[in-house]
């Protein structure tokens, strides 16, 4: 008697389905028109740490044969070098490779003034080397031969160096890392930084002050004396807003790799992303033979699209699209809109979590707002912050409970507590120089106060377990939405193509009209699937 098969209720009514699809269609059509019709870039063309560096050398000669040498960077840990080009100005240019390092050599008769240049692009990402603890293998023979012995520049066999090592009472030779650390600490802490001070290792040691290069040289010298192969490194410090400067540091051979360290720039076992390695193995910069005078200069430009370029790129030759482009707006308005236009995406995610998955969370948009507020934080730190502040708040509320205060003043006191907690975090951030914590001051406090209150009510009314479970789900949703707000691609997409908000609305219509089961329905009623029989 039953009908053939339970067709099942339609999961969505037709008008909603059509409305949703229509909106998605409109949004995507507009988007597609801009992307394919006018070639607007879909991903932001503005990678971090991309630089264009140019070395310009001017030499003057009196007609003798001579040469100019300059260290050239190679791709390696933390940097990719590409798109090189040279202008040799009547000289013959060649690149020589030695010990994995590259040197540019310009040869010829040096007559009058030659303007030589060498330019390249480099992508800097920083590098982090694992420094093995405990005992490590000794260095291979060729490394030891090349970088283990004394040289005039690094007089590792001088009695002064041995005297210093003696006074350090170093761990046994096999514990390379421990030895490395104590020698590094000595140079880092006990030798003052002084820009004009000597570059000579022994003078630096005697005066207890040295330049960046002097301290690095002393470090190399002491390391070699202690049996750890070490070599000097030269490079460039590239930072937005500051002129490019030459930098010197050291590398020590630990286990099976070179570990960068600098007693002046304060790094150990990592390469800051501002540093470009030009040459490892010597402090030699640009030098000339047979010239009467030489001068050189590095120029560095952060390779990025200027706002104008980007705007021009995002402004297709179509009056309608130009009129609608947000890139026409003043920059400050743009910044606000960039953030604002991400919210629909967050809301879309939220709707998915609530209506398709069915996760219970605190508040409807609270997770979205928290994820939004955490935009400038590393996620783990941000979630830790939220949890910590809520912990403080909930404890405070338990105490307040005894005073039997009315709700609004009580909430206000809670907010004061939250403010104090955030302030304490900021102080902490200030002292530990952790800028991320410091940025916590901007954390929207009201949101947290509401969260404290909601958490406490659920805690009291439905028990610890429910409160924690719901809190956990809220954090899960925050963590899931967080990457959306973090993504520069998403920001670029939503700002450059605001019509996508219409598509998002379409998706929301579809989600809103979805009357099928949520994931949590399936879990809740799973007994209908199988387990009824056994119980009765």
């Amino acid at each position, binding site marked *: 008697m039953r009908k053939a098969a*339970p067709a*099942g*209720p339609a999961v969505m009514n037709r008008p909603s389905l059509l409305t949703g699809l229509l909106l998605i269609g409109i949004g995507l059509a507009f988007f597609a028109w801009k992307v394919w019709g006018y070639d607007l870039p879909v991903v932001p063309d503005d990678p971090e740490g991309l630089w264009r560096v140019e070395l310009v050398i001017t030499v003057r000669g009196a007609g003798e044969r001579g040469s100019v040498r300059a260290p050239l960077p190679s791709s390696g840990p933390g940097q990719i070098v590409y798109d090189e080009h040279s202008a040799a100005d009547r000289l013959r240019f060649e690149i020589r490779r030695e010990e994995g390092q590259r040197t540019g050599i310009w040869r010829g008769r040096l007559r009058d003034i030659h303007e030589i240049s060498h330019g390249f692009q480099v992508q800097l990402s920083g590098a982090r080397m694992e420094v093995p603890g405990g005992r490590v293998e000794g260095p291979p023979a060729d490394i030891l031969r090349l970088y283990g012995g004394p040289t005039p520049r690094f007089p590792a066999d001088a009695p002064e160096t041995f005297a210093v090592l003696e006074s350090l009472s170093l761990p046994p030779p096999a514990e390379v890392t421990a030895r490395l650390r104590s020698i590094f600490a000595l140079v880092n802490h006990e030798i003052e930084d002084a820009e004009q001070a000597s570059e000579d290792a022994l003078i630096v040691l005697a005066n207890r002050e040295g330049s960046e290069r002097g301290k690095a040289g002393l470090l190399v010298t002491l390391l070699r004396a202690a049996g750890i192969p070490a070599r000097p490194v030269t490079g460039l410090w590239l930072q937005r807003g500051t002129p490019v400067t030459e930098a010197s540091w050291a590398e020590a051979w630990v286990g099976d790799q070179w570990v960068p360290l600098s007693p002046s720039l304060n790094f150990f076992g990592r390469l800051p992303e501002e540093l470009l390695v030009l040459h490892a193995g010597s402090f030699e910069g640009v030098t000339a033979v047979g010239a009467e005078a030489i001068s050189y200069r590095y120029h560095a430009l952060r390779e990025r699209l200027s706002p104008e370029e980007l705007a021009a790129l995002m402004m297709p030759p179509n009056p309608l699209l130009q009129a609608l482009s947000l890139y026409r707006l003043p920059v400050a308005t743009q910044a606000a809109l960039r953030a604002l236009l991400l919210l629909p995406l967050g809301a879309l995610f939220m709707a998915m979590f609530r*209506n398709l998955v*069915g996760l219970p969370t605190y508040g409807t948009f609270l997770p979205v707002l928290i994820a939004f507020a955490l935009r400038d934080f590393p996620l783990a730190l941000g979630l830790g912050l939220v949890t910590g502040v809520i912990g403080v708040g909930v404890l405070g509320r338990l105490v307040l409970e005894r005073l*039997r205060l*009315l*709700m*609004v003043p009580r909430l206000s006191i809670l907010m004061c507590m939250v403010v104090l907690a955030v302030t304490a975090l900021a102080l902490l951030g200030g002292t530990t120089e952790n800028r991320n914590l410091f940025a916590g001051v901007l954390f929207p406090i009201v949101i947290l106060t509401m969260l404290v209150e909601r958490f406490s*009510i659920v805690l009291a*009314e*439905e*028990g610890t377990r*429910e409160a924690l479970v719901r809190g956990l789900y809220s954090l899960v949703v925050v963590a899931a939405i967080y990457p959306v707000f973090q993504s520069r691609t998403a920001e670029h997409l939503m700002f450059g193509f605001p019509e996508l908000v219409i598509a998002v609305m379409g998706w929301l219509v579809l989600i809103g*009209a*979805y*009357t*099928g*089961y*949520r994931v*949590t*329905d*399936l879990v*809740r*009623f*799973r*007994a*209908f*699937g*199988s*387990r*009824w029989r*056994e*119980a*009765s």
Partner: protein
Amino acid sequence: MSIARALREAGVLGINRRNASYTLRWNPRGLHPGVDDKLQTKRLCEQAGIPSPKLLAVARHHFELRELSRSLMRLEDFVLKPARGAMGNGILVVRGREGERFVGPGHRPLALDDLTYHAASIISGLYALAGQPDQAMVEERLRVHPTLAEIATDGVPDIRVIIYRGVPVMAMTRLPTRRSGGRANIHQGAVAAGIDLRTGRTAHAVLEGRAVARHPDSGHNLMGREIPGFAALLEIAVRAGDASQLGYVGVDLVLDANRGPVILEMNARPGLAIQLANRKGLLPRLDAVDAWWKPHRSLEERVAFGASLGASRAK
């Protein structure tokens, strides 16, 4: 997704569908205050001559608290609750006095101060659905009918009937346990036992989503208990549903030892766990009601049709 298929075959109603096809469609927002606010519910019931717990005192503002505590002083036992509380939150049952002190849930002694503070929190909106200012109300404490009292621990068991377009479609009783702290709230560990609409007998029971046959505290058998006067109870539930004007409503009643069925509250977004307690999906019954429905069906007709729904599905 074999589970999804099984649910669809059993006609289980999911949250999205409940919201879209039933509560949003049949319960216009304008009618919600009538059930969200228990004072208004009480008024509706009184106008329709439907029994509900006696109202002993109300405090709408903080300055009325003194008056409220004076009334409490004169009372032996009562229930203090928010007018717009959600999910049974903020309900405080006082079961007697020991000299100056009141006896709260779990025989916890309570001072008058505690009660006043609780009332103040209620007025501030702590337990209200959306945190808006609320009213604290004091009601008579109902005496649970012995049939149900026997299988409930330490609290007031209630009976939930879902009324769809004036027809009772499913019912269950919620039995407090020690675990639920005396509250008839399934999420907090109360037992839910489905009631066969035709016979008025409990048929199945679930605890935390798992089938149980006996009460976890007392060990009493939960199956086949007949709810006394169930037909009358259904009738009262349907009349309350009519008074609310909602098309899809959960009516909560308490079976009082002396007064019989009494309307406790109504819910414009009744939960779906009732399907687990009955081991039946709601959808086939809702569809049957839609197919059968005509304007001006009499009360008796509708109750009888509801009972037949239980029968046709019992097999």
